[in-house]
């Protein structure tokens, strides 16, 4: 492959057909842009899930058997909760809540029944037959609530808060936004003077997606604005600012356009695509412009064509390598378990490919047509940056020992922080403490032990005492071992209460009876003295059930804790009930916990794979193992330092933060590639090593610096995020990119002058 010939042909194409190239790019952009408007947002959970995952399959089974596994909790707080007027109002609220299509059943004190022992065994009576109108009947109701064990379940222990628990009748097939809108419209109608708090995992999910969309609307213009500001200060000309900017804009339009043409939808994770492209896609253009300006200034007599030819020859390969490594880091997302993450990897890679192609075709075409900025011919004003960079190069080569030892100590100390790094995702913590959603979740968690539910699906002869005892043992084990599980509900609890009731309410008899027929009779008695739909949630059939589910209430959605519960429970089931009825964990919270950890594990693997591939690429390009090591090391150390810093600062690793690390791998290596490539070029031109380092800083230093700064500035847009971890992560990425930049501009001059590696002289 003769790269020189390719760059020559490319230049000729740019120089001979500049207008045609510009017109063609505009044509293709309109063609792609046409479909951008047809792009649909897809916030649903289903589209982003690995379809063959066992929890997804069991959730689908739960949907069919028990109509959904997610719950909605509405808590109502008032000092006069048990007043006649308030209770009448809340009774009407219960009816309205039940009328919402997605809610299959609402449990509250208004419809909850309890078991009352009598001479014939037991009776099933409603907790609330009539709304109490005087203090005596109110006292009576409170006493009944206490005796029935509803305190902490449906009413708080201070009798100031009660809750409505709605069962959502689908796990996937519904619009969470419409659901949230319906619920809040209803709640707003009833709230005041009472305080209403709404909490549910689907509502949290919808709010997260909503805020992400808002973030995208804010991020993109802010990031672009900041980049424009930086480019203005750097290049002081329209060509320097807007040519890289147009490349970014076109790459975003082409990426979203191809999604539109392929009938793809935009998932919530896809909202990160513009931020990533704004930060990355202008890099190639910046290097071309920077070198074009620098060569123009050094040789004022040369024509635009001559300068461009030289620019393309010098920067073509390093920017190709930079683009290739960034694409590789994103394509490694293909190893992800989440389809949406794989999709994003391919799309961002496509955007980067577009930006690379446009940078080497469109930018030179425009540069051929427009005059060079006036300031390039003047006695120049950028001598400060030049002097700073050259001085920096000299300083780092002169004090190379001190520089390398100091940097090694700092990086080892920061990397040690990895041991404190925690993997966790609690969607509540995305929001500031003052947010309505977090206040509601905290309130409900304090009064009723949480609003999130984990489910365990049990298959077999459910009325078999052995199966019921297994359920009891498993539930007790989970509650004992995991404090996050605050409450549980299963058919075993109901049978025990009925057995106790049948024996005159004797607490000692609150056990699973040994006789299957007796259990069957209890259930029959219960069904004839009630509506018969009380067990829809936990039994697939009231007479001969073959499936049941255990419901576990969680205090908070802590994926780390959920993952521990899943692992521990699966081990417990295998160890104790291996030959018995199959039991499997299911439900939205379980899925979230398991998938999150799967994603983050996958992300770590893809990170390592991408670092190895990038290292191999660099080794091939520099035809040296040391070359590969020199090019990859600053980036790899920066990634480790960032994780270490997260560990020290107590920032947890979650889906968003782990996905964004791709950028660090892809972009971090660019600076070292440019530095080493140009350094080798200068050495091949006959410069001594010291002169070559100085000339690299003089000619390419600004490109590397502006490139790094534009990424840092681009990511500073994350500071405007609604989400707390994204804001913190924005700071971390900015810091890490700065580490990479510093690694290229400080470590490499010191390291190369110390070791004088042979690959630079090849």
């Amino acid at each position, binding site marked *: 492959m003769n790269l020189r010939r390719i760059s020559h042909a490319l230049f000729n194409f740019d120089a*001979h*057909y*500049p*207008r*045609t190239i*510009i*017109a*063609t790019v*505009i*044509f293709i952009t*309109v*063609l792609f842009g*046409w479909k951008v*408007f047809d792009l649909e947002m897809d916030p649903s959970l289903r589209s982003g899930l690995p379809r063959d995952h066992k929890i997804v399959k069991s959730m689908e089974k739960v949907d069919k058997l028990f109509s959904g596994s997610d719950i909605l909790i509405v808590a109502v707080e008032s000092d006069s909760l048990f007043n006649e007027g308030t209770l009448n109002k809340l009774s009407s609220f219960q009816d309205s809540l039940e009328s919402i299509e997605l809610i299959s059943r609402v449990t509250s004190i208004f419809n909850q029944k309890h078991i009352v022992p009598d001479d014939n065994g037991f009776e099933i009576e409603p907790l609330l037959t009539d709304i109490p109108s005087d203090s005596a009947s109110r006292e009576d109701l409170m006493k009944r609530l206490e005796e029935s064990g509803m305190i902490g379940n449906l009413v708080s222990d201070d009798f100031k808060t009660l809750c409505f628990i709605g069962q959502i009748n689908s796990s996937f097939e519904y619009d969470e936004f419409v659901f949230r809108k319906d619920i809040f419209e209803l709640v707003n109608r009833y709230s005041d003077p009472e305080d209403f708090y709404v909490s549910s995992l689907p509502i949290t999910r919808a709010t997260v997606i909503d805020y992400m969309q808002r973030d995208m*609307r804010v991020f993109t*213009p802010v990031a672009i*604005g900041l980049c*424009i500001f930086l480019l*203005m200060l750097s290049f*002081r*000309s*329209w*060509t320097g*600012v*807007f040519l890289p900017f147009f490349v970014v804009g076109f790459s975003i339009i082409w990426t979203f356009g191809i999604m539109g043409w392929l009938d793809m939808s935009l998932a919530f994770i896809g909202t990160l695509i513009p931020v990533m492209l704004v930060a990355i896609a202008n890099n190639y253009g910046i290097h071309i412009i920077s070198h074009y300006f620098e060569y123009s200034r050094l040789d004022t007599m040369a024509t635009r064509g001559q300068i461009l030819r030289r620019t393309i020859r010098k920067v073509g390969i390093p920017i190709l390598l930079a683009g290739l490594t960034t694409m590789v880091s994103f394509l490694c997302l293909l190893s992800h378990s989440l389809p949406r993450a794989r999709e994003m990897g391919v799309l961002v890679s496509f955007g980067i490919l577009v930006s690379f192609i446009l940078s080497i075709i469109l930018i030179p075409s425009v540069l051929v047509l*427009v*005059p060079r*900025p*006036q*300031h390039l011919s003047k006695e120049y004003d950028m001598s400060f940056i030049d002097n700073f960079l050259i001085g920096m190069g000299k300083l780092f080569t002169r004090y190379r020992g001190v520089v390398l030892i100091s940097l090694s100590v700092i990086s080892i100390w920061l990397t040690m922080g990895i041991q404190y790094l925690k993997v966790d995702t609690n969607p509540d913590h995305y929001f500031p403490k003052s947010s309505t959603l977090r206040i509601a979740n905290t309130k409900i968690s304090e009064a009723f032990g949480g609003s999130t539910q984990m489910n365990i699906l049990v298959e077999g002869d459910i009325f078999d005492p052995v199966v019921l005892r297994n359920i009891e043992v498993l539930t007790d084990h989970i509650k004992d071992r995991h404090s996050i599980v605050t409450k549980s509900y299963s058919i075993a609890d109901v049978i025990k209460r009925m057995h106790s009731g049948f024996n005159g309410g004797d607490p000692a008899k609150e056990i699973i009876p040994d006789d299957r027929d007796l259990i069957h009779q209890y259930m029959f008695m219960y069904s004839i003295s009630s509506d018969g739909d009380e067990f829809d949630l936990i039994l697939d059939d009231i007479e001969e059930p073959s499936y049941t589910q255990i419901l576990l209430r969680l205090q908070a959605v802590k994926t780390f804790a959920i993952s521990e519960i899943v692992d521990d429970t699966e081990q417990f089931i295998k160890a104790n009930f291996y030959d018995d009825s199959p039991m499997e964990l299911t439900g939205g919270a379980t899925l979230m916990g398991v998938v999150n950890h799967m994603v983050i594990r996958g992300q770590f693997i893809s990170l390592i794979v991408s670092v190895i591939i990038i290292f191999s690429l660099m080794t091939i390009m520099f035809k040296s193992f040391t070359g590969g090591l020199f090019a990859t090391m600053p980036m790899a150390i920066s990634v480790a330092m960032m994780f270490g810093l997260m560990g020290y600062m107590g920032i947890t690793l979650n889906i968003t933060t782990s996905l964004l690390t791709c950028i660090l791998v892809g972009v971090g290596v660019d600076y070292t590639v440019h530095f080493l490539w140009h350094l080798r070029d200068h050495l091949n031109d006959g410069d001594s090593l010291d002169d070559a380092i100085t000339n690299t800083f003089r000619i390419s230093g600004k490109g590397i610096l502006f490139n790094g700064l534009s990424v840092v500035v681009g990511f500073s847009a994350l500071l405007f995020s609604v989400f707390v971890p994204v804001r913190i992560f924005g700071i971390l990425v900015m810091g890490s990119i700065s580490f990479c930049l510093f690694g290229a501009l400080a470590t490499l001059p010191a390291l190369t002058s110390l070791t004088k590696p042979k690959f630079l002289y090849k």
Partner: protein
Amino acid sequence: MNLEQKDKTLSGIIMLLTLAMVFYVFSYSGTSFDLEGRTIKDLISFIIEKYLDFAIIGYVFICFQLAGFVELKYKQDFITVSLLSILLTPFSILFILQNENDED
């Protein structure tokens, strides 16, 4: 036909195609602007209320492009012209150019 003419002809054809496509997209997309009964004031209030961010971005973008044109055509400093254009509206560029002509 020399290369430059060939380039101009080809680009002209492609731009015409692009324009035709833009017209096609707009005419078949069903996009309609219902302005009946609306005053300019209503329209401005609507834009300020709903799309203020887009309006500001659009304004700044136009200012930058005009500043770029003035920089390349009249060899003015891009940063100065951009800032003047954004702060004092693009009409201020006319005064700069007038002033330049007077000085010449």
